């Protein structure tokens, strides 16, 4: 790794440690990294939206290359409409005309809502209902080769469990009597499902932390002390030490403050 890349990596490592310091408590390092992230990321994604979305989807269609000549040469003049609607959003800068920004907002929400109705009905209701209709292999219960009550029973539980959990979501029926029992079974199924999903995710989350530890170790600490860095060898170590000392200084300060506080109390 060349020295320049190493300096960048050191900055990345500093940001990494600054974010981790949040686990102890809110502190200046975290605040710095947080505000840096908000600024940089907003700038980054805004530019990306311009280059990948607004320019090709609007200006390129209206202007054939020269965005400042958008009233000329347009290959798709009907794209003036969304352009104007977009401009209407800017009426929000004025108090008097800000009501006009409701038009594009209404369009946005109307189109989205209309899009969702058949799509969500199909994807979430029709397709799940189709999947619920299962051919339960009763043969598994009653002889015929392998006796496998678990898999037969499992299919029944999937069907009945889903029905019970749906019953739990009934809003206009009190959870009493037999229906209450069904709804209760439903919430049990929901809770078991939630617990299992939670437990299953732990592994992936731990992996995320391992990946960060690997980054700090392989890409930063090991590089800093790599003796094959003949050029600027001391530079690598100094850069490393600057970050390490800053963090150490903060820890010492915290400990001293803590000790003083407990002295005052006693």
């Amino acid at each position, binding site marked *: 790794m060349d020295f320049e890349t190493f300096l960048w990596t050191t900055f990345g490592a500093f940001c990494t440690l600054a*974010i981790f310091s949040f686990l102890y*408590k*809110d502190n200046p390092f975290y*605040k710095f*990294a*947080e*505000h840096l*992230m*908000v600024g940089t*990321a*907003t700038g*980054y*994604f*805004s530019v990306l939206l311009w280059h990948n979305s607004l320019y090709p989807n609007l200006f390129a269609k209206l202007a054939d290359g020269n965005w400042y000549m958008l009233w000329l040469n347009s290959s798709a003049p009907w794209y003036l409409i969304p352009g104007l609607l977009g401009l209407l*959003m800017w009426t*929000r800068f004025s108090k008097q005309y800000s009501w006009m*920004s409701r038009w594009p*907002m209404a369009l*946005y*929400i109307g*189109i*989205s*809502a209309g*899009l*969702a109705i*058949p*799509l*969500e*009905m*199909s994807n979430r*209701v*029709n*397709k799940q*209902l*189709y999947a*619920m*209709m*299962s*051919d*339960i292999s*009763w043969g598994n219960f009653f002889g015929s080769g392998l006796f496998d009550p678990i898999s037969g029973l499992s299919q029944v539980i999937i*069907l009945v469990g*889903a*029905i019970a959990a*749906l*019953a739990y*979501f*009934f*809003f*206009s*029926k*009190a*959870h009493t009597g037999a229906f209450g029992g069904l709804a209760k079974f439903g919430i049990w199924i*929901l*809770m078991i*499902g*939630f617990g299992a*999903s*939670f437990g299953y*995710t732990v592994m992936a989350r731990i992996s995320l932390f391992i990946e960060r530890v690997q980054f700090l170790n392989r890409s930063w600490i090991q590089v800093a002390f790599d003796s094959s860095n003949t050029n600027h060898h001391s530079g690598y170590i100094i850069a490393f030490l600057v970050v390490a000392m800053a963090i150490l200084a903060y820890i010492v300060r915290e400990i001293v403050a803590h000790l003083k506080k407990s002295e005052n109390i006693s």
Partner: protein
Amino acid sequence: MKPLLITVSLLSLMTAASFAQSDPPVEQPMATDSTMVASTPSITPPAPVSSLEAKDSPDDHGHSITLSWEPSADDGAGAATVTSYVIYHSTSPEGPFDSVGSAISGATTFTHSSAKESDAAGFLADYVDRYYRIDAVTADQTIRTPSSVVGPVQSSGQWYNDGRTPVAVAVAFFGLLSLFFLKRAKAGADLYVRPLGGIEAVDEAIGRATEMGKPILYVLGLGTASDISTIASFTILGRVAKRVAEYQTHLIVPCYDPIVMAVAQETVKAAYMDAGRPDDYKEDMVYFLTNSQFGYVGAVNGIMLRQLPATNVYMGKFYAESLLLAETGALAGSIQISGTDEVAQIPFFVVACDYTLIGEELYAASAYLGREPLLLGSLKAQDYAKAAVIICALLGALALNIAAASNATWGLTFKEFFKVTN
């Protein structure tokens, strides 16, 4: 933006298909190589495909022909000699025929289509007579047997998608059900709804914030204004903001998406007007943070620990940040109420928040908070729809199992009625 995603993936699939057409699938072996000939067992020409049919593809926008056939007799027998089928196309029965793609052995259908109008090279014009032929090809590409030519056939676009009829039925059924209950609600029918824990907590939590003199943090999540869960969250925000205005507590609404911010500003402003306190509304209650997922989380976490809100409300679309937000909120000692339709995130909210609206409860929340008869009427429609789903599922399972027991196929026929294709 799911529909967009689907469109994009469909498009890329089509593009891939058009690439497939220009690229011969298997390179020609070096048949002149002497060792090669020695080690390759000789291949006899395979039988051709039979019953080749070409039809306009159903339920589409046109520019597409679907072919179907019976596989060659040499397909799949032992170390099958047929490895692929190459599809040839021409606009005249005499040819010349061009290869337009290939299908793997065992396949019995192929769709000849063009990706897009703009893709001039692959453009397949509608209402043009077309003829097709299929070669059964062995692993050695030079040994192949052509089928007879079929045609003419024309492609065209349809005005109704037959495969989506079950969705049309479901939407119509649900729409009518909703209208029926809305009408009843308008007429003043008394509609019961059972109490919901998370909803009752909202009022309590706002009261608590007022007592403590601390703000309320409302997080609309990572959705855009095109997500229905975010739209549902707007209406909940409206109710919450109205109470907040009445109690004269401070409200913080940091946003991830600029349109969501604009809509949320309108919502909160209207709520303050409703509460009769338009002057208490401040522009800086609803503001934009960043459109980066983890930048947003980092900043909201900072707000929680610095401004120590009494209550955090999370409603809308949440991804991995659900637990990051909820745990930090718990650390700050805030009461937390959450609701999301993102199934994978519900467990984390359930574990880390005081109250969680699970899935559909999020959509019911605005009706609960508003207590307007019209909104309650739509809850009733939802319940009846759920009952219909349960009944259909039971009937389907019953039909399948009874029919299977008597070796009949009508169970499957019943099930297929519910299938959405295309």
